[in-house]
């Protein structure tokens, strides 16, 4: 579903990604972890073309992201993205947030888009918040609306960029539960997170990044039991306490 070959990216002279290779098959959930500044978010942003890159190739469902002939707008409808700080549109209700893209990009009727949006709000567990503005929702509720907004386009892939890092501890679970549900439902997912419980439960592969390189990867169990790289071990010790 996603193929990343020899991906390198620079900001000016600073190289943020070094020769990244990764393949994600349909239905897989891949967890990306690593210290801040290690290039995890940048990697996600290269996959949906929010950031250009200088070397290598990224193909999503057979379509090259860097090919100038690629319609990035169309490609992005296939890739949902959830952000650390939710990024809901503050002037719209939860429901309006969700129906905007289906109506404008897919030309769905308002009625059709709203029916689908309500179904998604049920799925993330907050149908009663459909007409609430983001300012009146808790962080966990906002993030669930953001997930519903991404799902409304019917993406084949969902990317999560530290979806629970900005949440109070008691709200983390409600968001993770939605994500676990999605993963078990067969969604192809890339998740940047340090929630190792989540990784253990659903990850097919865990990648550890440091200074723009993938320095360790493994299926979930091998990754946690015996990390080969001392840097990985050090990091895991810190976050797992």
């Amino acid at each position: 579903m996603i193929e990343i070959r020899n991906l390198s990216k620079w900001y000016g002279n600073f190289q943020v990604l070094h020769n990244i290779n990764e393949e994600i098959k349909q239905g897989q959930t891949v967890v990306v972890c690593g210290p801040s500044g290690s290039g995890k978010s940048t990697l996600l942003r290269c996959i949906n073309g929010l950031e250009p890159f200088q070397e290598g190739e990224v193909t999503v469902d057979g379509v090259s992201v860097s090919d100038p002939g690629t319609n990035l707008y169309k490609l992005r409808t296939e890739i949902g993205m959830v952000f650390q700080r939710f990024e809901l549109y503050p002037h719209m209700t939860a429901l309006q947030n969700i129906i905007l893209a289906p109506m404008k990009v897919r030309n769905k009727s308002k009625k059709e888009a709203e029916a689908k949006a309500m179904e998604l709000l049920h799925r993330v567990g907050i149908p009663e918040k459909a007409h609430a503005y983001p300012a009146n929702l808790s962080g966990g509720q906002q993030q669930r609306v953001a997930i519903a907004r991404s799902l409304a386009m019917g993406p084949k892939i969902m990317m999560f960029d530290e979806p629970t890092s900005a949440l109070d501890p008691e709200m983390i679970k409600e968001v993770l539960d939605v994500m676990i549900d999605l993963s078990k439902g067969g969604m192809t997912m890339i998740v940047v997170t340090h929630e190792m419980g989540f990784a253990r439960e659903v990850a097919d592969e865990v990648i550890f990044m440091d200074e723009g390189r993938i320095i360790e990867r493994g299926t979930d169990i091998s990754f946690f039991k015996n990390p080969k790289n001392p840097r990985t071990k050090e990091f895991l010790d810190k976050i797992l306490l």
Partner: protein
Amino acid sequence: MFDAVIRNLPFLMGGFWVTVKLTAFALLGGIPLGILVGLGRISKKRWVYYPVTFYVNLIRNIPLILVIFWFYFVMPILVGRPMDPFPSAVISFIIFEATYFGEILRAGYQSVSKGQIEAGYSTGLSYIQTTRHILIPIAFRRMLPSMITQSIVTYQDTSLAFVIGLPEFVRRTAIVDNLEVRSIQLFGFVAIMFLITCYISSVVSRRFEVKREGGY
């Protein structure tokens, strides 16, 4: 005590109507143009950014009265025939106010989180759709109090159109005063009219500030 005002009320109110019309046209043209000017000022395309920035800096560093004056006297040379004061004043005001509204909105656009724009892109929205449905509405709401203040300033500034002979409120009052010689009374009436209308607008503007949904 308002005898001179009452005797000339239809004539004076006719001038007030010209002032209101001029304000309405200035805002109807100036705000939409200001929305575009603001976008030009945050554009990463040099061929957009530099000309727009030049225009904004040029106009904002010239007094409004000179813009009105120059436009009125230069346009006939360019188009080959004299222009009526009213359309000339309307165009001058649009050109002038758009730079002020543009700078207010530029600040508004820059206050919108980059993530909200990227959230739009990541659902497949185009630049135009993201700008129209996310960037502009958020910036506009956030800047509404300043926009209303600038609109009130525009309304007050319309009297400057007297320099090209536009018979607006202040100009007509001056004409009446030449005949009646009741300056305090007549210009007191003008002041009261401006005071009442501006005060009402600012009260309405404060209501908007309170009613706005919080959190952004």
